């Protein structure tokens, strides 16, 4: 038996095991596109992982919260495009989303701003924004949102979530086959039943095509900390293209010293693997 065949049978076995675990947990099916045989850094796309139906967590430290929210809006935009493409008959009305937060967060970081969302590729007319008093109200609203079956996704900014609450959300999301995202501060380290947890850090933006001194396309450093039925943890820099509504993975910048810099075969000289499309002024 050659090493190669052993490798494939091994990966097939892993896939089978994963599938049966997923069945037991009644969670989503395993991603076939992310076989463990591929190098981790290239094999999985965090954006694809967190568009799966189920509960996902985005965490960031306090000062990076705005970046996490920005990333979340990009995820919403990708989901909106995806959901809209699935249902061309409903093209007249974009899919609806619920964004629930506490009044506290609005006071501190402002409210989602329609014109900006539109610039980022998300059409805001059916974004239900909820300003609740407590985290409990936010969680309740998310549960209702998942149960209603009228949304394309629900997102909540919460201070703390216990294991029970996250398990409830996770089960509901799986049952109604809908993605649900939680933005949590990093400082809260409670266990959770989420499928995926991403740690978001801001990253210097891509190059602006017209003006090198100006900020270009938004980028984040995304660290996959946990993925049920998914690849092992890794870290990658991602860029949002608001025109095609796609995430791109960016090779690490040459001048960036990362302790755990992923090693790709051919890092393109100093810049993005995929150049950002025309950045607007």
């Amino acid at each position, binding site marked *: 038996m050659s090493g190669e065949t052993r490798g494939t049978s091994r990966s097939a076995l892993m896939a089978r095991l994963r599938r049966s675990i997923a069945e037991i947990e009644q969670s989503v099916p395993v991603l076939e596109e992310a076989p463990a045989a591929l190098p981790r850094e290239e094999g999985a796309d965090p954006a694809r992982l967190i568009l799966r139906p189920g509960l996902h967590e985005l965490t960031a430290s306090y*000062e990076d919260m705005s970046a996490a929210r*920005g990333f979340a809006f990009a995820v919403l935009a990708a989901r909106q495009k995806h959901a809209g493409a699935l249902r061309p008959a409903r093209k007249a009305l974009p899919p609806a989303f619920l964004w629930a937060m506490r009044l506290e967060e609005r006071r501190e970081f402002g409210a989602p701003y329609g014109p900006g969302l539109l610039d980022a590729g998300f059409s805001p007319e059916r974004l239900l924004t909820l300003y609740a008093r407590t985290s409990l109200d936010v969680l309740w609203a998310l549960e209702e949102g998942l149960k209603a079956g009228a949304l394309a996704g629900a997102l909540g900014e919460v201070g703390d979530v216990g294991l029970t609450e996250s398990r409830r959300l996770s089960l509901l999301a799986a049952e109604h086959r809908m993605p649900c995202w939680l933005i949590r501060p990093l400082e809260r380290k409670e266990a959770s039943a989420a499928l995926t947890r991403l740690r978001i850090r*801001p990253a210097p933006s891509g190059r602006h095509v017209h003006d090198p001194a100006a900020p270009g396309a938004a980028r984040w450093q995304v660290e996959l900390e946990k993925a049920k039925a998914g690849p092992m943890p890794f870290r990658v820099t991602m860029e949002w293209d608001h025109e095609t509504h796609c995430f791109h993975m960016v090779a690490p910048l040459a001048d960036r010293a990362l302790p755990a810099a992923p090693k790709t075969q051919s890092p393109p000289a100093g810049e993005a693997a995929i150049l950002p499309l025309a950045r607007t002024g």
Partner: protein
Amino acid sequence: MRLHAVDERAAQLGLTRGMMLTDAKARLPGLLHAPADLEGDHAALQGLAEWCLRYSPFVAADGEDGLLIDATGCAHLFGGEEAMLARMESQFAKLGLKAYLGMAQTVGAASALARFGPPRAIAPQGGVSEALSALPMAALRLEPQVLLLLQRLGLTRIGQLYAMPRLALARRFRSRVAEEAVLFRLDQALGRQPESLNPLHPAPSFRAHAGYSEPVQDLSFLPEVLRRLSADLKSMLVREGQGGTRWTFRALRVDGQVAALSLRTARPVREEAHLARLFKERFEQMDLGLGAEYFILSADEAVPFTQSQGSWAESEEGGSASGQEEALAGLIDRLSVRLGAEALRLQGPCESHVPERAVHSRPALDGAGVADPAWSPSIPSAPLRSPPPRPLRPLRLLTKPEPIEVMAEVPDGPPMHFRWRHVPHQVTRAEGPERIAPEWWRLQDGVFEDVRDYFRIEDVRGRRYWVFRAGLYQDRAQNHALPGGAPSWFLHGFFA
């Protein structure tokens, strides 16, 4: 101090309203008295008026001590007019109140009969003038000085006015105001002048009610009551092809108080299940006191109900478009009812280039049927590479711009360093300025006081902010009133 009101017993002993308290106490040393609570009386009367909604949807308070009930078309529900009044009397007696009742075709006559007529007086059809003729002039709701004038003229009974020619009556009064008042009130009582009551609540479009012989005290029974009422209401709404958008559920308590819940829905509703879900969240707020025996559910506002029927072709992937819309409206209702209509919001674009005025945020409940101006993409899609009409806007906008400390390389240029919420940031990249001036009609004294130069900046870690400098730099520098002429900077929003 004077007596404001006396009870029956005191009246028998010769005390009257308006008597000096010292006189009264001299006559009856054992007199019990308490200071009058006018506001409390008023509130109690309003509460009692609510409670009387069980008799008719049109109820109003009459002065400080009366209630007007429009019983048109209601008496038959109680088995006739006499039976209705008898029922009222006994139900008021249960509350510990003695009710003086009168019924007539006009508000004026009913008020006169109730206050001065025999118990449970009913003026027969066409017999109003006869019923009133023996009553004293005070029954006409006249000012005390006018009454005094009438008394001086020897006119004490209303009937005396009937025979008198109007001109003669006019001549006898010196004051034109008094004459007009008497004739006006007389005409109102006799139905020659229209008078309508001003009801407590506008007439609900649809209402259903149910009484229980045993007072309901247990909140867990309310869903059952609601189910019964909403089933009644639904059949009415279906018959008329309507759906309700504003709902009130009232529980009339045995102690004469009323507990009420009101809510709105985003779309016209008539399904019992939907109403039950919405009210369920709020039942715990209802205070039934010692129990409630009568319940009213009203659709205060109803609009034509659009039949929803999804096309079968769409239903393959879990629910038709219209079903989805309905589910969304249901979700909006549920969230708004529990967390407040103000908490759940949608936003639409507004014609303004001032950032905070460019969006219009409204409660999601108000969205029903309102066509928002659509958000049109400001950035053309991929094939068109024309420059966008305006620079990018942030994803989150602070309600109130926050002041920041800024160090700029050149006075007019973008910031190099800034400090926001005590944390220093080093700027690596910047774009701008984008000058945004208020609309010309908002200019103050022709001075651009609120001109802003916006910059899109990125700090060394990659966090992106929207900041602006307030005012024109030259203006500031020349203005010696400002210390140093240093411009003020603000942080207004966050990019991804």
